[in-house]
């Protein structure tokens, strides 16, 4: 099933987006009608009122984009307008306490570049070849055995401005601050799923506590939106974001630099800034989109492979149907000739030649459809968040199969219609 994940995600986003678009369209239509009702009452004709309402409302495309933006990023972060600086501090000889000091210096320096809005640090980027995680326990748990785990949560060590830089929305509470350090109580920001599963409420979790496997209590100070962490197709996973100052230093880390313009314009300034701090520090610089491209490469390939398989299936069914129809036409060519000679009409000829093929095709399609509906549990897993009984899906399948069948019977049908009784009789 893992292989199907990318496809599942592809279809899911497609469906969610089209569902959302349809709902937005309907809401917009309702709005315009209500506005037009009001304008009509003030004495305008219906047509004029509707025209005026549309003009007043303004740009449709912008409306849609802004609404999609408001509903949230599909990753739980926004890769647009973000550059990633990945440094290898360990390779440059930084160790122990030097690491966080250098990380803080880099953040401070990058923040001063004109055009940069915020800079955040994370030990491991989401959707980047696996993720760190830890068992967590509800605050009431006293026996911290793995069997008593409340949830397994993704774990990220971040700097205070990471959420701003990553474009992750804070839903309630506060973000982390530089004061959340080793001398202050342990705190975390968690995602909604974490709050729901571990704290018992997705909206009221702020200020509550949970426990780490070492027994330490951690207070939740904020809740952020859910995101994708290990794979795109995963179900909502709990995640916790811990202040890097309260965590052991990590040599491998990425800086997220968010700007208000195409971040590539800042590439030179960013790389000069890092070189000024330490000319011997190896680092890579790319946009978050480029990073995602390579992280998503395997799943793209799998999607492509599945697509090719599907195409081959379709080609196979076309040749099968074509072969069957062509065979039945050629076998009965003489009979058809006689029928034509006796004055059979075009549709009668077609029925005689292809009736059986089409009947078989219809039975096959119906059986396939029925099995598909019966297997809806399996399909629901593949077509996530879209019911396989969705009339759009079913209609699409039926239409596609019917078109393929039609295409495959087209040539044999033409041949049956062109039957010339004289020629057939002469052949004898």
């Amino acid at each position, binding site marked *: 099933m893992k292989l199907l994940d990318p496809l599942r995600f592809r279809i899911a986003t497609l469906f969610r987006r089209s569902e959302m678009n349809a*709902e*937005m369209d*309907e*809401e*917009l239509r*309702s*709005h315009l*009608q*209500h*506005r037009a*009702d009001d304008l009509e009452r003030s004495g305008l004709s219906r047509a004029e009122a509707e025209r005026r309402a549309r003009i*007043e*409302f*303004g*740009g449709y495309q*912008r*409306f849609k984009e*802004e*609404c999609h*933006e*408001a*509903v*949230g990023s599909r990753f739980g972060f926004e890769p647009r307008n973000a550059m990633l600086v990945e440094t290898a501090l360990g390779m440059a000889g930084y160790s122990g306490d030097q690491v966080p000091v250098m990380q803080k210096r880099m953040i401070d320096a990058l923040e001063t570049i004109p055009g940069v809005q915020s800079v955040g640090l994370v030990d491991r980027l989401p959707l980047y070849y696996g993720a760190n995680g830890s068992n967590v326990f509800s605050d009431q748990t006293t026996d911290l055995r793995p069997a008593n785990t409340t949830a397994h949560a993704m774990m990220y060590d971040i700097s205070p401005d990471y959420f701003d830089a990553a474009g992750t929305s804070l*839903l*309630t509470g506060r973000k982390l601050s530089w004061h959340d350090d080793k001398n202050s109580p342990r705190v975390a920001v968690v995602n909604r799923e974490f709050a729901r599963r571990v704290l018992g409420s*997705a*909206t*009221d979790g702020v200020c509550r506590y949970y426990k780490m496997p070492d027994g330490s209590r951690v207070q939740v100070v904020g809740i952020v*939106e859910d995101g994708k962490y290990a794979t795109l197709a995963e179900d909502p996973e709990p995640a916790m974001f811990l202040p890097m100052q309260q965590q052991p230093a990590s040599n491998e880390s990425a800086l997220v630099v968010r700007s208000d313009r195409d971040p590539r314009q800042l590439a030179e300034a960013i790389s000069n800034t890092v070189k000024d701090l330490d000319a011997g520090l190896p680092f890579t610089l790319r946009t978050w989109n480029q990073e995602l491209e390579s992280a998503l490469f395997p799943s793209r390939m799998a999607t492509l492979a599945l697509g090719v398989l599907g195409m081959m299936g379709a080609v196979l069914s076309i040749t099968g149907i074509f072969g069957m129809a062509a065979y039945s036409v050629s076998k009965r060519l003489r009979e058809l000739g006689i029928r034509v000679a006796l004055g059979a009409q075009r549709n009668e000829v077609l029925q005689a030649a292809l009736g059986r093929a089409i009947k078989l095709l219809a039975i096959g399609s119906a059986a396939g459809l029925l099995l598909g509906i019966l297997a809806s549990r399996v399909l629901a897993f593949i077509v996530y968040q879209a019911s396989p009984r969705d009339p759009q899906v079913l209609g699409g399948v039926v239409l596609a199969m019917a078109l393929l069948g039609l295409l495959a019977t087209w040539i044999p049908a033409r041949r049956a219609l062109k039957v010339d009784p004289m020629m057939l009789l002469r052949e004898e």
Partner: protein
Amino acid sequence: MTDQAQILPGTLDLLILRAVSLGPLHGYGILLRIGQISGNALLIEQGALYPGLFRLVRQGLLKASWGTSENNRRAKFYELTASGRRRLREETDNWNRLVAAITSALAAQPEEV
């Protein structure tokens, strides 16, 4: 039109929450209600309302359901959730504090400084 004021950035959410707190409303109804409770002094762009609504739904402050409007048309109605009600209370307090502070700052006389 001349007496209408553009709303301050960030206050749209507060106005929406307040309008909806008086009873479930559809999008266009929210615009009318804001106009009505502000004595038609506040101007909100029609297109700007919906992203705000969607954001509030996503934050769990509003919930939406489809129903039939007073004009007998299908419409999506918004109402406050418990956390929306709480957020409205907090934001109202914040706003009052801010207004009091700015009013007193603007009213300060030279001899008081």
